[in-house]
């Protein structure tokens, strides 16, 4: 029965293969975005410190997009992993005192990522126990616990004074973190780029498809044999590791860690960024982070006292009137340009 069907539909098969290949293909706006991002380091070297902040924020947002946009887990405490990663990298760089393995930035990223993956995996079981509201509370609670722990363990973290003596070594043993932040930006951007490629690959894999399925309809996902919770454990773990690397980048490029890395506003900002940029698009995290930082800078300069008002207003309008955030706009534009109906 099946055999005859296959023979009858040779065309269908190749159409299907082409369809899947097309879906995951890199499109020109993607190349443009990354080339542009790297070019910024050379076009506007004086703004490199700001760009570095954007790249770190983008990676942090990317990590939440995996958790929120793909796994559908609402987290109000994603900053816990950002902060943990920052402290791990900071403490390592401090222990290495600017030389040796512990101060090696790449090593620092790796260890921070692994530490956060472990903590993320363990806490994922708590988070997945409940529905949305419970998840919100559990993630928030975990973040608050982390913040208080960092505050209390002043002997390790420096407490309210911050962690002093963070001395990251040369990047790959060659490039020094310069005063203007160009190397820092290139370092953060390269990390973001590599991790983005990994995330993109994972999202387009069968695992990634199953995450979208779970988010779309968990009941049906279970009925086709998907172990929903185990997949979500995996996604949450990846998200935690990514957030940890973002925190580590901040610690290394600023050579400082303060309690601010675990502050609630980080968790809230990053959620705004993901929603602003477009949930479940990967690029929304990057575009959202850039837009958020730019808006913040512009508004803070133009109306130092009321910038939060304007930022809030823009956010409300965007969420109300543009479905899918900035990426919703961009996707619509791209489809109009190329005359395609597919998703960007």
């Amino acid at each position: 029965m099946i055999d005859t069907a296959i023979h009858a539909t040779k065309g269908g098969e190749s159409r299907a293969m082409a369809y899947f290949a097309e879906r995951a293909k890199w499109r020109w706006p993607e190349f443009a975005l990354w080339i542009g991002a790297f070019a910024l380091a050379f076009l506007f070297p004086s703004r490199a410190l700001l760009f570095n902040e954007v790249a770190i924020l983008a990676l942090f947002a990317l990590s939440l997009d995996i958790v929120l946009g793909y796994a559908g887990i609402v987290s109000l405490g994603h900053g816990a992993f950002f902060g943990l990663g920052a402290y791990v990298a900071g403490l390592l760089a401090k222990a290495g005192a600017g030389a040796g393995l512990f101060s090696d930035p790449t090593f620092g990223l790796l260890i921070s990522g692994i530490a956060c993956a472990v903590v993320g995996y363990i806490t994922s079981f708590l988070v997945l126990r409940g529905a949305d509201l419970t998840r919100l509370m559990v993630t928030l609670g975990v973040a608050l616990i982390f913040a208080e722990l960092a505050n209390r363990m002043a002997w390790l973290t420096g407490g309210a004074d911050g962690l002093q003596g963070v001395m990251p070594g040369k990047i790959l043993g060659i490039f020094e973190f310069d005063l203007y932040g160009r190397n820092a930006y290139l370092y953060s951007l390269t990390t973001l780029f590599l991790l983005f490629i990994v995330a993109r690959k994972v999202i387009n894999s069968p695992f990634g498809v199953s995450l979208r399925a779970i988010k779309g309809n968990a009941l049906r996902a279970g009925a086709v044999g998907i172990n929903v919770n185990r997949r979500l454990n995996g996604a949450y773990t990846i998200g935690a590791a990514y957030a940890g690397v973002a925190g580590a980048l901040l610690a290394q490029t600023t050579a400082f860690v303060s309690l601010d890395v675990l502050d609630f506003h980080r968790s809230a900002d990053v959620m705004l960024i993901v929603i602003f940029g477009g949930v479940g698009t990967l690029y929304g995290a990057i575009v959202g982070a850039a837009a958020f930082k730019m808006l913040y800078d512009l508004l803070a300069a133009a109306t130092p006292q009321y910038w939060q008002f304007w930022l809030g207003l823009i956010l409300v309008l965007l969420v109300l009137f543009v479905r899918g955030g900035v990426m919703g706009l961009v996707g619509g534009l791209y489809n109009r340009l190329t005359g395609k109906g597919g998703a960007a």
Partner: protein
Amino acid sequence: MSEASGSVLATKNLVRRFGGLIATNDVTFSLPAGARHALIGPNGAGKTTFVNLLSGVLPPTSGQVFLDGQDVSSWPVFKRARAGLSRTFQINQLFADFTPLETIGLALSEAHSEGAQFWRRAGTSRAVVDEAVAILEQLDLGDVMEHRVGSLPYGKQRLLEIAIAVAPKPKVLLLDEPAAGVPEGEREQILEIVEALPKEMALVLIEHDMDLVFRFAKTISVLVQGALFVEGPASEVARDPRVRQVYLGESEVEHHLDAPTAEKGGAA
């Protein structure tokens, strides 16, 4: 389990309570391999609850469910699905943002235990793609396989709801009102598809449409107020006066009874 062996799906003293309401009342039931079974009963008889208990969507209050002789009472939905128990839902449970191709590809990836692979692009498994296309063509979804599921006409969505359950080649397939809401003209197609399913697949059809039931089913169980009321070959059940009384409209049964047994000049 003696009563469970020889049957692909069985229950023993299955009970489900919702507060004071007994939705499933001490149901002991057995389904042989390759069965063509219909589960009927008046509205509120607990048919869907029973299916939810079988598939693991609901845990039973007491009693057991056996799949291939194995006690699966405490298994979650996904584990029962992997063990060969598949189902459709009365209300479509689909992925609106997927295409039919992705949907069936997903179901097959899971069936092939490839669903957790994260380092290759989805759609690169030739076997999965070929099989998905074959199933979609078979269920008349070939021409819309790259369309967004949410924008498909209802009839096509209903076919996909069946396709996704059939794709993993389950041992047991529970069809919860597959033709619900489908316009009269398209019901025939659904029945033909159900009739063309592999002989070895045990089918349980929950249905209100007596035309479908009597055309499809070799055996029938009648649920009334959560309990098994009558069970047996379709012709006997149709002739059972108690069944007519509690559930089937006299004229409906008369009609189905008369068709195959016309030479006897009708019953009672």
